[in-house]
């Protein structure tokens, strides 16, 4: 729902890192986004196409790597991945306890940019 603001930050970060590197065009931006996020790939790209007009990143493709939700079991210490839809029953596959905490799944990272 706040794709527009997030997209603007992605654009600013990409353009900032491109400057000073003799870049004529940013062709691809690699992102890593946690699955707990509600962002939709299609919408981020659409907003990006709109916001990036006239910038170094015009026409760049957003390549999103979705990072899994990882839980850590407080009982046995094991770590395991879980689908967002399965969060209601997050039992540890090893010991069956559901005393767990979130290890990762909220990432919002611009990893790198491909430029020419």
């Amino acid at each position, binding site marked *: 729902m*706040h794709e527009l603001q997030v997209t603007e930050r992605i654009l600013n*970060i990409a353009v900032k890192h*491109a400057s000073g*590197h003799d870049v004529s065009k940013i062709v691809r931006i690699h992102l890593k986004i946690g699955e*707990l996020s*509600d962002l939709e790939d299609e919408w981020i790209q659409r907003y990006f196409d709109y916001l990036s007009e006239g910038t170094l990143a015009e026409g760049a493709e957003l390549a999103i790597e979705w990072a899994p939700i990882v839980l850590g079991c407080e009982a046995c210490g094991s770590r395991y991945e879980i689908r967002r839809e399965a969060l209601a*029953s997050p039992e540890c596959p090893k010991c069956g306890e559901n005393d767990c905490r979130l290890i990762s799944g909220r990432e*919002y*990272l611009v990893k790198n940019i491909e430029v020419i």
Partner: protein
Amino acid sequence: MDEVRLIEVKQDIHADNERAAEELRARLADTKTFLLNLMSSPGAGKTTTILKTLEQMPESLEVGVLEADIDSMVDAERIASAGISAIQLRTGGFCHLDAAMVSKGLDALDLDALDLVIIENVGNLVCPAEFDTGAVRNAMILSVPEGDDKPLKYPLMFTVCDVLLVNKIDYMELSDFDMGVMLERVERLNPEIEIFEISAKTGWGVKEWAAWLSREVAGFIAD
């Protein structure tokens, strides 16, 4: 054909906001002002809950309210007419508040004189969960008519909150809301969360929650 080069960035998209949130927390620690971020869906009863909660807080406590609304003043006017300092932030279409917006809003309040500021965030269970506002504690309201499935639909919101207020408890009889199922769903997502059942309309249960908040504020000020 130009060769494609890779430039490493490794920058968190929310890094700017997180920095702004830490700066705000440092500022509030200096002025000894406890900032509570209150979130919920539209119509869950944020404004009524704030008014009823403040009635139950110690009179010596100096309180301000930061109202976020996409484009209206209705809530700020209600708060101000109860004699409480209220600042209206019109978010201009933004679906949430971030730390920079909150910090700017707080400039209009005399923080040195205030012990507690409550942010009434934009009514929305999705976006506000993603943005650290710089608050000391995050609280959310889930009202009974919304249904017991909300922890399944908006897990992040339930994960980031320190307190859950289950409001409109007076609707329970009319509803198929299953309290046991809802509590189990929430505790699985966030075993640390404090839960209070209230009716902001009748005032039922508000005293216990207000007592918890008063203790938190007193502890923060004494630190």
